[in-house]
């Protein structure tokens, strides 16, 4: 029972990180129908910037997180502007291949700039261990879960209550109608990339703190899993991405604890395939029929 509770907390920890990254995938997909493969790399760069801010500049924690999020928001907008905007009206496949290209480019850029060997991420959060009976919870875990939940609530309020949030929902619903309503679609899309990338960067920092490492290919697997989380919850639906993230994190942790560490990834992929085959629109998604 204690082991189970312990794993439950670990699952929440990993799940909240996946949820943060998954939000970026789902927001971008919702608004321009593109799987932003580069999102995993945005997360990786976010972790690297935090690493540099913490080790070279010795910034305080809040500044480390903020600087990494702001820089990645700018880079995210730049990526959209340079690589995705010229292809806005091109076939979906071209845009997707471009996204793969950007992902490869950023990964190899990181390999050249930062070198392939993993670096040790310093413990940027104050480290104390709380004991609840026999369960141990580190402050890092609590901060990770707390920060993720805080930003998710903030995002939800932003999307639902503010003018820009409403514009985002309008553009993802119907781009042409949104233009007619006087919404600046280009700016809204840039804003979506900024928000998604900032959350992705935060996810990257938390991920690197949890696994104590930063390396150029660290974005690939969590990126893929976060994407699976987004699909699982229903791609384009923000609460779905959060739900999917927690489910994937939980499944992964439980598989590692009770079944097998080496098969954990395979089981995550198997869940994705099963969900897609039986409910391609995801858990919270609605069915739409293809029209002639």
């Amino acid at each position, binding site marked *: 029972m204690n082991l189970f509770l312990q794993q439950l907390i670990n699952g929440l920890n990993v799940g909240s990180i996946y949820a943060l990254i998954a939000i970026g995938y789902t927001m971008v997909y919702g608004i321009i129908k593109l799987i932003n493969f580069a999102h995993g790399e945005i997360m990786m760069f976010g972790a690297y910037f935090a690493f540099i801010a913490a080790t070279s500049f010795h910034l305080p924690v809040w500044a480390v997180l903020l600087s990494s999020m702001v820089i990645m928001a700018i880079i995210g907008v730049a990526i959209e502007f340079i690589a995705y905007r010229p292809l806005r009206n091109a076939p979906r*496949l071209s845009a997707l*291949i471009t996204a793969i290209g950007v992902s*490869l480019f950023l990964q190899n*850029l990181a390999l050249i700039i930062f070198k392939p060997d993993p670096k040790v991420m310093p413990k940027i959060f104050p480290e104390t261990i709380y004991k609840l009976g026999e369960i141990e919870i580190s402050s890092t875990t609590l901060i990770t879960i707390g920060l993720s939940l805080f930003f998710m609530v903030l995002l939800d309020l932003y999307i639902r209550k503010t003018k820009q949030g409403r514009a985002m929902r309008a553009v993802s619903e119907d781009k042409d109608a949104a233009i007619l309503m006087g919404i600046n679609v280009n700016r809204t899309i840039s804003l979506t990339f900024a928000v998604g990338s900032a959350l992705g960067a935060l996810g990257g920092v938390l991920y690197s703190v949890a696994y104590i490492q930063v390396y150029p290919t660290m974005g690939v697997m969590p990126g893929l899993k976060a994407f699976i989380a987004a699909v699982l919850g229903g791609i384009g639906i923000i609460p779905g991405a959060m739900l999917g993230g927690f489910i994937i994190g939980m499944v992964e942790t439980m598989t590692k604890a009770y079944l097998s560490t080496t098969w954990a990834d395979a089981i995550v992929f*198997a869940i994705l395939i099963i969900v*897609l*085959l039986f409910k391609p629109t995801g858990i919270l998604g609605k069915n739409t029929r293809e029209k002639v």
Partner: protein
Amino acid sequence: MDHNKKKAYLVNTVAVVALYLVFFLLIQTKTMNNYFVGIAIMTCIMIIMAMSLNIVAGFLGEMALGHAGFMAIGAYASASFSMVLIDSGLPLPHLVILILAMTVGGIVAGIFGFLIGTPTLRLRGDYLGIVTIGFSEIIRIFFINFGPTGGAAGLKGITRLVNFHNVYWVTIVITFLIFTLGRSKHGRAIISIREDEIASEAAGIPTTRYKVLAFSLAAFFAGVGGALYAHYQSFLEPSKFGFMFSIEMFVIVVLGGLGSLTGSIISAIVLTVLPEMLRSFAEYRLLVYSLVLIIMMIFRPQGIFGRSEFSLTAFIESLIQRKNVKNSIGGGEAS
């Protein structure tokens, strides 16, 4: 067979044999050392992989991002088969063993293509792409954990049966088969699904059956490619068949032009030979790759060849015609 077709077959056969003779002479006279022969063999294998992927990505127009998985299945199946066969001590010539191993690799991969394709091809576009990634990752993780084929450490001791001569002719045969497929009734049915699935279904084409057929055939040829790879490298490790390898093959097909087999061939040659020539820039190789990919998508999204094929016969004819135009003073006959 009409006159034009006969001529095309003749021209292409002559070209293929001539190319082979060039390589044969280069290898016999040791002008081409083992290193270059190795590159040539890898190029042939990549041509097979790119063309087989083109059946799904180009003819059928669906995103398949898990081609490395089928290659892995073919490689492991054929390698296990040939190891057992050679251990059994049957006095078979190497070529026969290779052909049997390729058949086994192809069929096993094809069966998996059928099993995976049947349920997944109901999905479209991005979703299909993601599911194929999922399956190929599962296949890779399976081989990492599967003891009898060496697990994560890899499968060692595969007899090296592949040399340039047999891989060249296998590539030619597969090229011929896939070209023929593209022009057959079935190929046209598959292409019609790419153009408009709903319309082709209305025209009476059993779309699901043809989608699964295209997928299984692609898996079959990928399996053959994997078999060749296994018997060339004589060592297999699961990490080779990761997500990035699938993406690399996809990039080759996209750069050549989705739906253009000659495009696939040329881009496979360029993208296999060029990195080898640029060994000293290995670090920047993938950086340049990805930049080319992005720039290509922005400025020429249809790839080098688009959907058209390079035709040797038409090329020669245009050369002759140009000469005629130059010779005739008025040049008014040029059409």
